[in-house]
């Protein structure tokens, strides 16, 4: 009885100590990089120069970056700036995973915010599902970014849909042996998906790393990198994530 009480007390104590240690670590980290935590309203010239300076050091070219976007903690302005940074760096596909389900409703707002931030920066921003909203290029040899909002229904429900179509005989899926191989099923499944490369990198904020149901089929080799322990998205944290990504080499099971 007494020992059980003691254990419970120690349990609370352990968690309290961890909480304090994490808090102290966060404060010290914040003091070390004082200026990087100020979220700005707009992409500045200094940001662009800073990105351009760092781009040549990145050897692994990112093709598709996914942001776990939580509309409760991220502002539209932060997400819009992320798109512009990626435009400067030259990441061709940027997707937002709609964790809470409310980003989709703010798509138009996000579009205008991106256009507002883009002023004076060469390049072209295209919306994967809205060809009529497509921006235009100004400048030669500029980058293009395809922006896309991914939701839960693009993941498991679409795989279920695919199996349903195969079962009904409405979708062709070859089978050489008793069971489909990943390649055979994958070929059929790709017909239901837009031609976008699999994500190379998922970035998230906050202490919890979770996929929240993001594209189960497509994330097999995706790296998950935390941008900030709090929910800030700023240019230093973004560059930090890119550097982290560049250190990893892929081994493909070998």
């Amino acid at each position, binding site marked *: 009885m007494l020992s059980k009480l003691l*254990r*419970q007390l*120690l*349990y609370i104590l*352990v*968690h309290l100590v*961890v*909480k304090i240690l994490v808090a102290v670590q966060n404060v010290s980290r914040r003091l070390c990089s004082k200026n990087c935590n100020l979220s700005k309203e707009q992409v500045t010239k200094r940001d662009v120069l800073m990105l351009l300076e760092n781009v040549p050091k990145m050897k692994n070219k990112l093709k598709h970056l996914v942001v776990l976007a939580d509309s409760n903690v991220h502002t539209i302005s932060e997400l819009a700036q992320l798109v512009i940074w990626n435009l400067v760096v030259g990441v061709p596909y940027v997707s937002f995973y709609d964790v809470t389900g409310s980003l989709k409703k703010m798509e138009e707002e996000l579009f205008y915010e991106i256009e507002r931030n883009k002023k004076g920066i060469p390049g072209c921003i295209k919306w994967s599902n809205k060809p009529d909203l497509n921006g235009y290029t100004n400048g030669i040899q500029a980058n293009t970014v395809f922006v896309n909002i991914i939701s839960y229904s693009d*993941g*498991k*429900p679409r*795989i*279920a849909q*695919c*199996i*349903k179509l*195969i*079962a*009904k005989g409405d979708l062709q*899926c070859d*089978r050489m*042996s*008793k*069971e*489909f*191989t*990943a390649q*055979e*099923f*994958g070929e059929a499944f790709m017909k239901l998906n837009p031609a976008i490369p699999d994500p190379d990198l998922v970035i998230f904020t906050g*202490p*919890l*790393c*979770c*996929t*929240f*149901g*993001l594209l*189960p*089929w497509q*994330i*097999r*080799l*995706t*790296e*998950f*990198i935390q941008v900030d322990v709090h929910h800030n998205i700023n240019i230093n944290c973004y560059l930090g994530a890119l550097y982290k990504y560049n250190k*990893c080499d892929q081994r*493909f*099971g*070998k």
Partner: protein
Amino acid sequence: MATWIKQNCISFFQLFCIKVIKNGRVPQHLAFIMDGNRRYAKKLSVNCSAGHVKGFDKLSETLKWCLDLGIPEVTVYAFSIENYKRSTSEVDALMDLARDKFKRFLDEIDQINEWGVKLHIAGRLSLLPSDLQVILSKAMLATKNNNKLRLNIAYSYTGRDEISRAASHIVDSVQNNDLSPDDIDEDLITQTLDLGAPELLVRTSGEVRLSDFMLWQVSNTVLYFSDVLWPEFTIWNLLGAIIHFQRHAPPLPEEKENSPVQQKFLKKLENKKWQELEKIISF
């Protein structure tokens, strides 16, 4: 000596710490990507297979910790379908290691049954050498009725392959009129897969990707990436992961009831799987 669950690897103090941590929420299903055996071997300049042997020893220690923590289900990623691309000598060494360990598993079956370990090998068994298939099937059948610790070993496995195999079972059942296309939904697929959803997934050695492991199942899982190499993983690393889980775990999603048709299909599929294992050992 017990090969699979190492005894006497916990000090009194460690056991006390386990009991303290157990006061909070403990994951009911814990998954490991046991990465870093080869880097560990390189670090000590021994050959790869020595690293894998060390990795297995660590697994048996980890299983003991999980039993003491009261975790009822543990899943480990032991061998990926992609790993067949490694050098023949390394693949052969890994297969020999599996043969050896699972033979011992069968030798120690009385003790294993006493602990109540239920073994499940998840993966495309048909790619494995036939003698190993027989051993694995025997081990699974021998522990079929145990229920204290469910040990899933992903062997010759990838998450995409698992989804594809589940798709084949569902499509076949529609063709046999056991299911109608309208019965197919996300939850049915979830239950047709080899593995259930883990609450916590630990990957060692600093890599931050899933490498085709439990792709479908991790939607609500806390992913925990640790920098230590698997053979150097300690009980403190495990307790650290569990404290992280206790601090940040999302609430459990609600479970949905199956329709009678779906229930019947799942029952039939389960029976079919056991029958196939019986068939393998009878050859």
